[in-house]
């Protein structure tokens, strides 16, 4: 459940950052949510990947449909792939990778903090 909520929140904050911040805002979004909702390394990694990746992919896909692939069909010729679908997937993967690692960073940072807190609580 926490996994799903984390994905949704990362996606939501990624969307907001897309409105107001340069592209690297997604790293802040994923790190912040993972800091607030830390978890097991793999879980956080995957939720960062999916939260940002799926949103980027969906948004690229939506933009592409709205503009009838007018530009993506040209851009794709500049890349070593030959279908717009791959360009949309690549967008998702790039966003996803940033989301995954920055999510992990946020979560591991929180864990340092938590451990210190626990120690101080028991001692």
């Amino acid at each position, binding site marked *: 459940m926490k996994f799903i909520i984390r994905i949704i929140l990362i996606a939501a904050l990624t969307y907001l950052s*897309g409105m107001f911040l340069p592209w690297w805002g997604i790293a802040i979004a994923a790190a912040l949510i993972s800091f607030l909702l830390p978890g097991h390394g793999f879980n956080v990694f995957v939720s960062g990947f999916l939260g940002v990746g799926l949103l980027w992919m969906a948004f690229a896909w939506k933009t592409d449909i709205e503009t009838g692939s007018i530009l993506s069909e040209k851009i794709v010729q500049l890349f070593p792939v030959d279908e717009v679908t791959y360009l949309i997937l690549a967008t998702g993967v790039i966003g996803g990778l940033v989301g995954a690692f920055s999510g*992990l960073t946020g979560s591991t940072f929180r864990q340092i903090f938590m451990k210190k807190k626990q120690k101080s609580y028991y001692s």
Partner: protein
Amino acid sequence: MKTFRFVLSLVITITLLYFLNTKRDQIPPLGKFMDPFAGFWQNGEKEGLNIGDELSLEGLDQPVTIQFDDIMVPHIFAQTDKDLFYAQGYITAYHRLWQMEFQLLATEGRISEVIGAQAVDFDKAQRRKGMAHAARLSEEQLKKDTEVHTLVKAYSDGINAFIDQIGYEDLPIEYKLLDYSPEPWTVYKTCLLLKQMSNDLSRGEMDLENTNLRGALGQETFDLLFPDRHPGIDPVISSGTPFDFDPLPAIAPDTAYPNLRIHKTLTNPNPDNGSNNFVVAGSKTNSGNPILANEPDLGLNLPSIWYVAHLNSPSYNVFGATLPGAPFVIIGFNDSISWGFTNAKRDVVDWYQVQFRDEKRDEYKYDDKWLKADQSIETIKVRDGDDVMDTIIFTHYGPVSYDRNFMGDGEQINFAMRWTAHDASDEQRTFYLLNKAKNYDEYVEAFDYYVGPPQNAAFASANGDIALWINGKFPIKWQEQGKFLLDGANSQHEWSGFIPHRQALHELNPERGFVSSANQHPADSTYPYYSYDYSYEYYRNRRINDRLKVMHNIRPEDMMTLQNDNYDYKASEALPMMLDSLDTASFTNRERVVYDLLRDWDYFAEPDRQAPAYFETWWSLLYESVWDEFDAFDFAHYRPSTYNTYYMLRNHPEHAYMDDRSTPVVETAGTLYQRTFKQTLDSLDNWKSEMGMNPQWSNYKNTTIQHLLRLKPFTVDNVKIGGYRNIVNAASERHGPSWRMVVEMTPNGPNAWGVYPGSQTGNPGHPMYGHMIENWAEGEYYPLLFMSAPATNNERILNTLTLQPN
């Protein structure tokens, strides 16, 4: 352990962010570029205008209405001139920002900043032409002309209003691919843009090549192979026009020219940069109104060199082609007059050999004195590399472009460039006046301020006048002055002055009922001033004039037909001579088929014919084998013109140059025809098997409208168009009609048509990108919507945008 995990993932994240935010070689910064919120995805556009219907802008005095028609021409209606040109700048930037800035960076010699070390030599060459210095002088001059300066400044403010308003997501796609941002526009940049037009149109010369060739060939052979003119030329100003003025004198000194061998020279502008214009008087037209036609033939690029606009204010109502980066209309019409340009070729660049006093190069010899030289230290910033420094010495002639640091391979090679475009000039005033000129006198007066690039300015007015003036600043030269390298230490080699504008070549309402120009010789040999160019046109001019002489009851459609005329004059003269010399008795079947194809050809280079492909290939193989001797020259040179090649083949078929030096036998023209005919067949057979199609002319020549970054997906190739260089429809591989315009001047206002190979939008992500290319290729035109107030109910107006003062 936990700290280590955090540090590790932090390092990976930062590395990844850095990597995805940085451009590497040809790869854009992928994170930034692919971001669906701001990256390239945002450059895909929907049909029509995607800017809203109302914008609030700083710097406007009154609201401005801009209506866009179905080909996205902006019809700008402003209440003051300042607002008008502000809006012109704003809307031009909206459609063409990247192009106008990139062209400027190229002119300034700053391309290395954007694409890296590979452009350093290009940038050095650009800076060594002295255009930046000239633009600064022109800006100073413009500042004194306050009325015009205010408008140029308003245009610049309009561009900046657009730049200030946009974020990364709105940047043109090219900025995102190359990963850089626009800089503010300035009046200086507009001045520099006009110098760039001179660079494209008036910098062509062969002075150093001529010096080499005369030294190597001897005067007699040089004159035979590179004559200044041929008998029977058809000049711009019709033969027989009296020149009833007292020419200012130019006396040739009795001194020798420097004689040197030069190995490398600056690249000339493309000699295919040419144009056609022609105007017929009411006496020759169906309606009784004069009709003007013009098309500048320039490099075919996307975004297009021209941006069409309609400018309206209480003092202006003018329509036509504008240059992105400069205010006013350059080629166009208002309700009283219309005008169009072709390049008036004439050597306005001369080279002077400079003798420095010593290694320090701060003084140079001038008669018996030493004059002080200035230095300009240029810093070329290089992307992902160290700055490159270059020192340019300036003499009173101009920059010492060739020296020990650039293209000079000896201490003797110090050549200073004297170019009319180096002088301060105020061309903006010409367009400021011309755009609102009401009649012939005002048109003539507008060019009093015009320096260059020199243009054949055709004119028609609603009251029935037709005219053509050859405008520009032309030095008075003695016979052959500046055709060869000159001696910078000898004051007698200097230009002694300039031809006064009122002595410029012109024609007003000539008896033949038309005026025309196509980059040919300006006048016949009775013109008292010396004029020279290495590449005058011999074909398009004759075709146009031949046609106009016999045409009557001309309608605008007939002018369009003539603009799109594909008659190959060169083939009509050369091909019968070539075919006659073949030994038809010994033909193989394959040879017979091609021979018949060429014999039956009517010389029209239509896109679906095969004969032009055979003829052009044959001609170029023949040309190569006639002038093969030139391949052995290890110095800078060029080869005789197409027309002179034909002339030599016809009149000197046994000349020593006809011999192919790679064979033991002595060839004459006859042997060359036979051999190159066979080679043509082989060459075309190869082409056919390689391409898997027949050599239909348009496929074979492959006219390509290329994106300025040469990106294939943003380029339109294999355009189905006929014509070629030396043909009126001058669409060659990469050059051609860049704006075709036909205007009938009626007493009730102009009727006008136009088309160009591109689109108003420069965005490859807009559905209309390049949309006019097909109609352009087919010779179809768009009616140009000329109105004096915003339309309230016109089905061609698709969007209305209001700019509100903030």
